[in-house]
């Protein structure tokens, strides 16, 4: 079916009106191709991040030092698989299949959050991931519950509810460790030292270097700029760090009374660029693991499909 230029103009006007009025775009609505592509890229990247993010935390499930912590961590990593599935489900409403996105992930053609390319070296990393990484993710994600695309917004509502529990358990673990032995306290500070700067990078490049931000904000796919969210995260985290009794590793971090916000030091964007381009500490390992799981599972998926096909044939009535 062809659409005339006039019709396209009408549709585009409808779309713009809906978005401007904070309405939701739903899967069968007309949408600009750029909007659809941007959404697919953003949601897929988000879904991939959930799935790859299972690995650094999964690294400690077998060694979790108490049964309660083991159960919480296993449930958390399971939640992340669930979040990935919710998000892949949202991408499918845009006409793209999960299998296709998985291929793009393991071929390194689509990205995931660079934070998961850092290693988890101690159990305190589990707490710090909950507190800082999930905390940063919440800053990024809570506004997305009002994203203009309905299926994405709805998935984010569910995800944010669970993420807030994740952040809470991370904070609670760190509080326990800080009230523990000297070795446990040292473990926490070491983990904070390693994760603080990567967590700031989670908000993406500075606004001046983020060419897509303006269009994404106009489309209400994004609600705030990278720097706005990063500032909010810093302002939120500083008092929490004080409450925990840990030092954030930034000598330039201080309250600016004039701006009513914290000043903080320069982010090492070279390191960020390295990690994004695939040369972080764990990029290769994370993708290799995901690829192995996917490829090792092919025979299982094939078998189930073959079984279903046989049954479908058998169920055809003989008469």
């Amino acid at each position: 079916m062809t659409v005339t230029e006039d019709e396209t103009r009408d549709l585009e006007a409808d779309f713009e009106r809906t978005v401007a009025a904070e309405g939701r775009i739903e899967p069968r609505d007309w949408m600009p191709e750029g909007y659809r592509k941007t959404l697919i890229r953003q949601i897929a990247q988000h879904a991939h991040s959930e799935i790859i993010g299972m690995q650094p935390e999964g690294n400690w499930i077998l060694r979790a030092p108490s049964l309660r912590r083991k159960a919480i961590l296993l449930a958390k990593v399971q939640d992340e698989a669930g979040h990935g599935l919710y998000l892949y489900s949202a991408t499918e409403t845009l006409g793209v299949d999960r299998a296709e996105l998985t291929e793009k992930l393991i071929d390194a053609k689509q990205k995931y959050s660079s934070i998961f390319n850092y290693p988890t070296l101690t159990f305190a990393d589990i707490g710090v991931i909950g507190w800082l990484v999930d905390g940063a993710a919440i800053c990024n994600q809570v506004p997305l519950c009002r994203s203009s695309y309905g299926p994405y917004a709805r998935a984010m509502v569910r995800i944010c509810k669970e993420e807030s529990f994740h952040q809470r358990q991370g904070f609670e673990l760190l509080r326990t460790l800080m009230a523990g032995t000297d070795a446990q306290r040292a473990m926490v500070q070491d983990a904070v030292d390693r994760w603080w700067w990567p967590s700031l990078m989670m908000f993406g490049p500075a606004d001046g270097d983020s060419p897509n931000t303006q269009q994404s904000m106009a489309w209400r796919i994004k609600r705030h700029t990278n720097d706005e969210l990063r500032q909010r995260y810093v302002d939120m985290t500083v008092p929490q760090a004080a409450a925990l009794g840990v030092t954030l590793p930034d000598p330039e971090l201080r309250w600016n009374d004039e701006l009513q916000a914290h000043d903080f030091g320069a982010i090492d964007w070279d390191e960020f660029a390295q990690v994004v381009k695939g040369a972080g500490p764990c990029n290769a390992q994370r993708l290799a693991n995901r690829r192995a799981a996917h490829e090792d599972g092919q025979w299982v998926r094939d078998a189930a499909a073959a079984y279903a096909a046989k049954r479908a044939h058998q169920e055809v009535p003989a008469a």
Partner: protein
Amino acid sequence: MSMADDTTAHVEGEPTFDGSTPPRAHWPLYEVFVRGKRGLNHVHVGSLHAPDDTMALHNARNLYTRRNEGVSIWVVRGDAITASSPDEKDPFFAPSGDKVYRHPTFYEIPDDVPHL
């Protein structure tokens, strides 16, 4: 990417049963509907992939209800749904407009459904 190309990628190939060429089809997409408690309607909560109806129910129970007892679940293959959507305008996607399983989530989720 074209919608038409994309959807054909999901059509399961005609399987052969002589053991020579096992079908390498993707698991089909299922839409999931959950009744959170008695007195409520089933509402659409999302989708998942499963090889068949039985496993789709298993997966739905795991993923969308966290195995909450007393929750009723429906799963239906996306390609079995026929839908109309008067407020929505989809001429751009018209070639796949009948493939409603591509566009499942136009059901709204009430806020009062637990676990969603």
